[in-house]
């Protein structure tokens, strides 16, 4: 209890407190979006698209109904997208000469505290998204109720793996147009090459290595194999290792970039 109290007064928690305080204004809308996103998508699948695909494509889906196949992909893609959008843009804003980071940097907080606090916030936001998303999916029978809880930590790992590099980059950005470009030309194309909507075996053979290289594919494949119960230990280790490495390297680069930006 005492350690908990001490931890909560650690500087990084003050930065988390700031973002949570701001979130008080938008949390209702954000929960509606977190629920509506899987709801709309699962309804659409239930109403016909799924049936159509199941009739024609069950061979390449290894006999799984399409909804069970695509759901983990949608979850991970949604988490990635939120992590990028919540990290890159707000970090750029906060690092402007009049931004929140500048205010925080003039208090006892060090640049690394500011980063850790914001990272905790992204993780909490990802947890909210992942829990609501899988909850809705369980209700639709799109994922097994026993395996659903396993998807949440996988989603968190993916969120952190994308948030730290996004923050490391975002803190150096000075023009908002660069954010749009990154989203349009890097994040969105990832969907196409990462087996989100269809198995990467459907890609031309020469494109498959591209998929193996993308972090989104590692996240999607880990989440999917766990959800479908086809996970293998080597596969799980490779995926987890890849995503963890990305998160840790992102964190180190972000720490360095935060210090350079806020402490000139």
């Amino acid at each position: 209890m005492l350690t908990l109290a001490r931890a909560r007064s650690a500087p990084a928690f003050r930065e988390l407190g700031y973002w949570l305080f701001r979130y008080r204004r938008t949390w209702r809308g954000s929960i509606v979006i977190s629920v509506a996103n899987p709801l709309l998508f699962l309804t659409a699948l239930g109403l016909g698209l799924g049936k159509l695909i199941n009739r024609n494509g069950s061979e390449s889906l290894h006999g799984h109904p399409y909804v069970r196949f695509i759901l983990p992909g949608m979850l991970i893609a949604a988490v990635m997208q939120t992590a990028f959008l919540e990290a890159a843009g707000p970090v750029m804003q906060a690092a402007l000469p009049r931004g929140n980071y500048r205010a925080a940097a003039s208090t006892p907080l060090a640049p690394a505290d500011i980063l850790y606090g914001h990272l905790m916030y992204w993780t909490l936001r990802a947890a909210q998204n992942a829990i609501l998303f899988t909850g809705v999916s369980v209700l639709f029978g799109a994922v097994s109720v026993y395996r659903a809880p396993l998807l949440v930590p996988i989603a968190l790992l993916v969120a952190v793996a994308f948030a730290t590099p996004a923050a490391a980059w975002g803190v150096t950005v000075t023009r908002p147009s660069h954010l749009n470009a990154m989203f349009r030309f890097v994040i969105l194309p990832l969907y196409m090459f990462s087996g989100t909507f269809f198995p990467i075996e459907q890609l031309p053979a020469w494109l498959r290595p591209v998929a193996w290289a993308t972090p989104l594919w590692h996240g999607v494949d880990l989440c999917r194999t766990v959800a479908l119960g086809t996970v293998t230990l080597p596969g799980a280790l490779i995926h987890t290792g890849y995503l963890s490495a990305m998160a840790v390297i992102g964190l180190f680069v972000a720490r360095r970039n935060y210090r350079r930006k806020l402490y000139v």
Partner: protein
Amino acid sequence: MTADASTVLIEATGLTKVYGTPGGRAGFTAVDGIDLEIHRGEAFGVLGANGAGKSSTMRMIACVSPVTAGSLRILGHDSATDGAKIRARLGVVPQDDTIDSELTVRENLLIYGRYFGLPWKVLRERSTRLLEFTRLSEKADDEVATLSGGMRRRLTIARALINEPEIVLLDEPTTGLDPQARHLLWERLFQLKQDGVTLLLTTHYMDEAEQLCDRLVVMDAGKIVAAGTPAELISRYTSREVVELRFAPGERQIMADKCRGIVERVEELPHRLMLYTDSGEETLAAVNARGVRPLTALIRRSSLEDVFLTLTGRSLVD
């Protein structure tokens, strides 16, 4: 004032700031080996034109900018190693204010106070008191977008006081404000000084420096070119009075030639001549006797503006 160690709150020796260029070579020296000693309870000013290095100095003292060379001790700590400890006891009003437009006026105080690890209960009490002190009570629950420039500045000051700092750093606190807003702000800062808070402020307004500062330094191109009380600086670097003559654009040069020799020192500014003298009346009479007919003639006491002109050959505010 006696300067034993316990009363020296800020001590800089050979303080230097060099900014790296993107290429990483040949940096730009913004602060060039300055010495400062600021005592408890005094209001200390740094007077200088744009680009003199005032903000760079303030940011180093605020411990958000590493010192390139020299030593900087604040409140008994080394700024290089104890930044967080020092920042906990400083109040900072930066040149670019960092008021949060996502929060209301009161929330700005509360949330900023949380950064110092203060409990909500203390913060609620303090924020009410500080909003009163800065005359913002009526705006407490408004969005900051509705504040005027002067109110924003006062909110920044209220926020800087939330941790009951021993030193308040103010970087150009009244730049861009209208005269009325400036006077209200000066009055509040004067009150702070009465309450025993040590103030370090930068300004390029000589009247601000004269009004608020017990001691000041004049900074130019990263160096301190003079130091002392306002009265000392005026008596050391300029005459008692100034005769200021204004001319039509084409006439200044001719008139300057005509005035030569009346007084020891004449400064020529665009459209203006300044004649430094111990008796304004006599000098003006001499000017009239030579048939010089300025558009306007003004006799005034010397000010820090004249000190600055003497020291740098430039006017403070162009």
